[in-house]
């Protein structure tokens, strides 16, 4: 099953490569990966999604915790959480297609953020499933380019991932 793991890591050179290297070294998959500094400039936050059974996920979290640069981590999928991914998509939009695409964007609560005579750039956020569904709705034929941010996530309620 898909897991979302959030990792607080020292904002130090080479720290990210240790995390990524661990996955390839031990034969684990990374499906998505996002990294950015946090409000504390000494820390970065990595959110990654991976797939595996409980045994594999336990090993992944143990090995991540073993890395000296990893300060804290949480498997968000263990509790209630909010998951978001941002997607920018460039689609053909001419003739009758133009109105159809616009309707689709409205249904999925996306925004059109750039327009030319023949295409739209659409911005859409949501769970990965929602983004997948949007791509399917628009149809492969009209898609020119897709860029996805990878999953970000945060737990619901009182739980906080911080020092």
């Amino acid at each position, binding site marked *: 099953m898909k897991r979302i793991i959030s990792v607080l890591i020292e904002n130090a050179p080479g720290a990210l490569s240790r995390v990524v290297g661990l996955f390839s070294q031990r034969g684990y998959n990374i499906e998505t990966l996002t990294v950015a500094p946090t409000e504390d400039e000494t820390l970065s936050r990595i959110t990654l999604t991976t797939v595996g059974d409980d045994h594999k996920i336990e*090993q992944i979290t143990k090995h991540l915790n073993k890395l*000296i640069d*990893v300060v804290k981590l949480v498997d968000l999928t263990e509790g209630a959480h909010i998951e978001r991914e941002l997607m920018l998509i460039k689609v053909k939009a001419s003739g009758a297609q133009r109105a159809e695409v616009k309707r689709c964007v409205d249904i999925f609560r996306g925004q059109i953020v750039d327009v030319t005579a023949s295409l739209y750039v659409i911005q859409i956020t949501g769970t990965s499933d929602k983004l997948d569904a949007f791509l399917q709705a628009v149809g492969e034929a009209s898609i020119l380019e897709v860029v996805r941010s990878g999953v970000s996530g945060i737990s619901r309620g009182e739980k906080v991932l911080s020092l």
Partner: protein
Amino acid sequence: MEMLSGGDMLIRALRDEGVKHVFGYPGGAALHIYDAIFRQKDVKHILVRHEQAATHAADGYARATGQVGTVLVTSGPGATNAITGIATAYMDSIPMVVISGQVVSERIGEDAFQETDMVGVSRPIVKHSFMVKNAAEIPEIVKKAYYIASTGRPGPVVIDIPKDITAPGETFPYEYPDKVKIRSYNPATRGHTGQIRKAVQLLLESKRPVIYAGGGVIQGNGSDLLTDLARRLNFPVTNTLMGLGCYPGSDRQFLGMLGMHGTFEANTAMHHSDVILAVGVRFDDRVTNTVGKFCPNAKIIHIDVDPASISKTVAADVPIVGSVESVLTEMHAMVKESKEQPDAEAIKAWWKQIDEWRQRHGLYTAPRYNTEGESIMPQDVIRTLHEVTKGEAYVTSDVGQHQMFAAQYYLFDKPRRWINSGGLGTMGFGLPSAMGVQMAHRDAVVACVTGEGSIQMCIQELATCTQYHLPVKIICLNNHALGMVKQWQDMQYEGRYSESLYEETLPDFVKLMESYGHVGMKVTRKDELKAKMEECFAMKDRVVFMDIQVDQSEHVYPMHVAPNGSMRDMWLSKTERT
């Protein structure tokens, strides 16, 4: 505050950390550091003949003393040559700090002369690594490196230092920190008391227990605690290849090594056990054989300082994360205070069964190899070595059949006496690690058990032995072939000896020794083995190489049946299996 250059700060920090010996090899990017070494007397540098040997020597030094081994190499090829030794230390959790020179900061990334991304290349085989960006950080980084290398589950740490950082021109205030705190690194110490209580309960209820103890017991200085606990409980003990010596090898309760070349009694007892107390071990594939068939009726208590080791390959019923020392102390106290005691009747019956296995196929009740023939049997060489050195020697080994014979037949009574590359299986480890041991224990008897294949992988170190008067004794089991490769080719490839025979290409080791200023001895007859070996060890201040011509067709037994075998499925000889 004293003002020092980066190079001087580095060496001063080593001194203040308590480092006495550094094993290394100079080169362009490390020259400022070597100049700093030249201008002081506290830290002694040992010049090896190949950087791989520097890491193995520091490794042997660390294994024999429990202190952190220190290595200094230059950038590029110096750094990459150290990689095999770093990987060796990583696999066996040996505390080591490797300092590598790097090209000047502003050339990094430009494919400069002798540039290698050392932090990148070493990343999967280090516990941690540092790239020094400012000279002022040197004292703190050194402190952190030694702290990380030696605490928790020990391991190698790399410090990569660009040449400009160690330059003599600029100076910085020097102060060595007393302690260091790393917010993201808090190695486990005490185990969970509730879990330890559960474990004690299981142990006291068990009827067929086995204590399975490994290198973690030695690394964690838990040998005495483990021995006391095992004796109080009267439970049988088996050691992994890495754990030999953590329980006295000549003790009645010792079953010998377990695993692929473990004894019949150790492997069979494991298979039939109902409770296994696993301490400082990692259920390596060379121990478990087929994981799915591993000890089907056993409840497993697993003590380890590294949570990632627990339930990695074999699920633990009672996992205990903590230092071996603290957990065993607490466990022993609980056993003492408990109203319950082990079921004496059941344990007696279990010992009766084990003794019957020992009688049937044990390695130590009667020789399980041909003692009648003309040729010198490798097993006899190790037994003679044990006799001549009174079981007191530090024994290092290389990798292959000779390593297994040494592990089986030199019964180690003390920890830190058996020094071998268990996890990585690095040929070439034996001689340089023996140098490291001898450097740490100048008066000790140090023997390197090797083969004519392995010894040639780091044979250049004979010159280092000359330079530093390291009188190690090299016991070479010469069978004119890569013995373990040949054994597998016999067993699995119908005797097709692909690239495993030396034919007539071996050097004359006696002459070779003489050219280095050492003593070489060739032993060809069985009846002269003991006298020659006594002669060898009587030359206390000389390096002596015993080229012992052993039986060329002998195999190491027992050997696990693989694939799909369980712990108890073993070949006992070329024709006999369980």
